[in-house]
């Protein structure tokens, strides 16, 4: 074994045991430094006979290259290992839940109310609000419901003062009257808000929410009412849901309808949820009665219109399968936080 081979063997042994960058640095100096072993061999070249010089020179160069290559590789290896162990020390359990910000929840009624509003906003309606405490005039008289009329029994009303004729509105229709008295047609509004009726049981609340709509224009017909409600029903309950107008009676519309939507559970074939009829009642609607127009000073020959009104709780119950209306005013956070 010659000197060159021995040097390489020695180097390989040393590098084998080097496990940090500092050790590599020492080995590099030991072999490639000014006083290093390979440098010494290079210097030895000049002492050799001329004919041996090329071969020896080649061998030393090869040795130098090998050592450099190995050193470089080892260097990279160590850097990689060091990084690896640093990351390992910093390892986190990514499955541990995040420290979440607690976000609040919309009340389901408020959320459905906004869904309903948004449908009509896309059709260019205005949102109008009015007082919750009303006069008999706006709640009944102006709506073609005189004192003796049996239709007043349809709403059992909370009175603030029978003497003053002030009451808690039993529907948001007074807003329609107030709007018509204030502004000239055409009109396209919805009136959302709280309403009150003297009823409190599994299916009735003394306070609940309504959205009523009113459209007054020239040539407005039942076809426009139907088109609007079809659009509303499909937007809220999903495409494919059908609407049905069933003749009914309200004092302030003529003709009047109860509006049904096809049952989403059975698709109209009839099931327990829809009482085996295939249809679910969702609102009342109709063409504005000419008496109401006369009351607000519109000419019923020139203007026609339609109105509709729905209970927000009812829509929410149908859409979100809520089976107890009393959950809404109860405000149990275990309910609130589901939406």
């Amino acid at each position, binding site marked *: 074994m010659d000197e060159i081979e021995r040097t390489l063997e020695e180097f390989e042994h040393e590098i084998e045991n080097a496990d940090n960058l500092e050790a590599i640095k020492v080995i590099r100096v030991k072999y490639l430094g000014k006083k290093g072993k390979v440098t010494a061999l290079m210097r030895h070249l000049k002492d050799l006979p001329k004919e041996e010089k090329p071969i020896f020179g080649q061998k030393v160069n090869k040795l130098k290259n090998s050592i450099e290559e190995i050193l470089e590789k080892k260097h990279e290896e160590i850097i990689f290992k060091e990084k690896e162990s640093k990351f390992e020390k910093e390892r986190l359990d990514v499955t541990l839940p995040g420290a979440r910000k607690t976000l609040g929840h919309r009340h389901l009624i408020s959320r459905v109310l906004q869904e309903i509003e948004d449908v009509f906003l896309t059709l260019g309606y205005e949102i109008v609000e009015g007082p919750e405490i009303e006069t008999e005039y706006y709640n009944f008289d102006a709506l073609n419901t005189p004192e003796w009329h049996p239709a007043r029994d349809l709403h059992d009303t909370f009175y603030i003062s029978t003497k003053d004729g002030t009451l808690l509105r039993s529907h948001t229709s007074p807003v329609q009257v107030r709007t018509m008295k204030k502004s000239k047609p055409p009109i396209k509004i919805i009136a959302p808000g709280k309403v009150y009726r003297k009823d409190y049981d599994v299916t009735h609340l003394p306070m609940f929410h309504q959205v009523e709509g009113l459209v007054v224009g020239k040539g407005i017909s039942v076809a*426009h009412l139907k088109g609007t409600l079809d659009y509303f029903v499909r937007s809220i309950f999903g495409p494919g849901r059908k609407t049905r107008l069933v003749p009914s009676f309200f004092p302030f519309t003529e003709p009047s309808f109860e509006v049904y939507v096809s049952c989403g559970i059975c698709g109209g074939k009839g099931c327990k949820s829809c009482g085996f009829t295939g249809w679910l009642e969702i609102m009342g609607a109709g063409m504005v009665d000419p008496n109401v127009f006369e009351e607000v000073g519109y000419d019923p020959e020139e203007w026609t219109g339609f109105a509709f009104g729905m209970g927000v709780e009812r829509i929410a119950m149908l859409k979100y399968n809520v089976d107890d209306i009393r959950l809404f005013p109860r405000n149990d956070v275990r309910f609130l936080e589901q939406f």
Partner: protein
Amino acid sequence: MKLSLSFLKNYIDIPWDTKKLQDKLIMSGTGVEEVYKPWKGMENLKIGKIMDIEPHPNAENLVICNVDIGDNVKLVTSDRSLNVGDFVIVAPKGTILKNNVEVKENEIRGVVSEGMMCSLEEIGFEEKSTNVYKFPEEMSKDLKPGKSAYELLGLDDTVFELEITPNRPDCLSHIGIAREIKALCGNSLKEINIDIPKEKTIGKDTRDFIEIEIEDPNACPRYTAAYIENVKIGPSPLWLRRHLAAVGIRPINNVVDVTNFVMMELGHPIHAFDYDDIKSKKIVVRKAKDGEKILLLDGKEYELDGSELLITDGEKPLAMAGIMGGELSGIKETTTNILIEVAYFDPPTIRKAAKKHRISTDSSYRFERGVDPNDSEKVIKRVISLILQVAGGKAAKNIYDVYPKRIEPRSIILRKKRVNSILGIDISRDQIETILKALGMEVRTSDENFEVTIPTYRPDVEREIDLIEEIGRIHGHSNVPSIIPSFSIDHGGRNSYQKFRLNIVNLLNSLGYDETMNFSMINPEYLEMWGFQETIPDQKMVYIENPISKEISLMRPSLIYGLFDTLSYNFTRQNRDIKLFEIGRVFERDEKSETKVKETEKLAFIASGRDEKNNYFYKSNVNFYTFKGDLESLLYQMKMNNISFKASELPGLHPTRCAEVFCNNEKIGFLGQVLPEVAEKFDVKTTVFITEIDIQKLFNFYNEIPAYNNIPIYPYVRRDISFLIPRNFESEKILNFIIGFNKELIEKVEIIDYYTGKGIPDTHFSTTFSIYFRSKEKTLTDDEVNEIFENIIDEIQKKFNIKVRM
């Protein structure tokens, strides 16, 4: 109203099955709430003939009947009145009798009874029976043992529970529904027999027996009477009982049953008096006197106020007109001579009286909605004819009809163009005419218009629009096209206040608050529990005059009561980390307002427990400053500047942890810690913070589109300083002082630390202020900043007499 299909078939042939009929009625506006078979479960009732009766071996009061029902069955009964040869109704085992009583094969004291013999009560034909029913002699030719009693009695009936809208009194009868079906299918109505056989009349007129005087023809436009003598009061025949039972009317006696039957048949309520109880032989229809009293058939005495209409004998009241008969002049077992009344009363008069005295009868229900004033003759003749048939007797040869205020059928002009423009369809002249005629209207046409005469049983059809509705509902609305109106209005969308409010809702959700919606009505006791009753005068409160219960009888003067109640509900159900808010109106009396009440929309929110319940790196509980921070975050995010707080004392709140909130120096609300002793009254044993803000006031200061500021070019320089501040000092003063010290160069001041505890006296706290200096013109040097900073520190120490914390 209950509609019996077998009852209905007396008046029209129905071309549809039950389901189709139901659909047809619903789609034309007659609501059908329920469909049921009233005698379901009784299909196996059989006619039985008693072949043999033997004593019960083990019981003296029982007998064993061997009854032929095709086969021979043994039936045990306690009815000792039965005889061999009697025909009875036998219910085999499995039969479901009235009130869901199931017939079983029973062993009765050692003898097996293979079913039972029924009384009329058990099949719903009688209120209270004492004996097993025996078919009468005259029926014997129809009676074959083993044949179906269900069929013989006509029990295969179907009843529709109808929901008739208040505008359609004409549908409160079987003839009314028959008329609807006629309009829908075109079949004609069957004749109703109103013949009074001559041999069953006497030579005198009704007016020979009674004098009729109507004092108030507006309230009673028509009064028709008929006299019948020598009737025999007794039970009604089976067919009559069955008709009444099907429609849910209790059989009483033959005369009263006939009046009820005819009411259900023709829709016109009828009253029958015991003629001999009318001592004066005179009927006077008049308004009651104030304070007058009347004893009605329900056994109650009513005190009248003068608005009620009475049927009197000239002195004493006999009946409250159209509502209920008097106790003293009704039909009794001993009655022999009767006076039948068929009248027409003004609907509002009847309604007011019925409403005032809280009486609702089948009669008042119809009169207050409006019966046909012009069917009286037909109705009274039908009653006479049936009474003569079921109770015998003889009738006066003529009725006595007093009709001082004739009600004529109305005439309405209907324009074809208007029909189509309202309904949005294209219906022909012929179709319109066909529908109107099918509805019983007389039609004269001229070009495109119609002159339509409305039968008086349709008081709801008063105007052209009402006729259009009729055409629409009979024609059907399923073919109406679906069109969205194309016109637009001046502006739409949410107005700025609605956007502002929605923004608040979304921000509070982001701050971790759940939205609640509480009743606007609260328990007035809450005021006292909160100690608020002293600060808000009771005359400002808005109470409900007719509440359902005390718990919801006061219109809330503040949102905090309901919100705290909700917190308490959740707290007592293991939910301890709570953040809730509500936006809604509060109420206060205001004589100037149209409704004498002022409504203000407010926002309230409430918090207790951990501030960030899902953040395990930040474990602080809600405290005054985190809570105040939530309010400030909301307000500053909405660019509500110029917000300030003043320490104040409010009832129900912690006296040294309570502030009033101002915006531009106007008070907009308060915030504070709920007094622990108040919280405990609601079972809340934790620290709770609450705030209420008048968002309508706040909105007045709101800028929807805030002005834009240039982004700074030069860097800031920051200096921090801590002060030792007495607890009763208002740090806001320091903040305002610093900000105001050099408006050019001081950009903002922040609080970066709050500390109490070790090294700080109990009476003080330490706060670190971080001041940001920045110039719009250049980069500030340390020297420039230090000079201002040191001046600030010096002046604060001198001005407020507080010390820097080293």
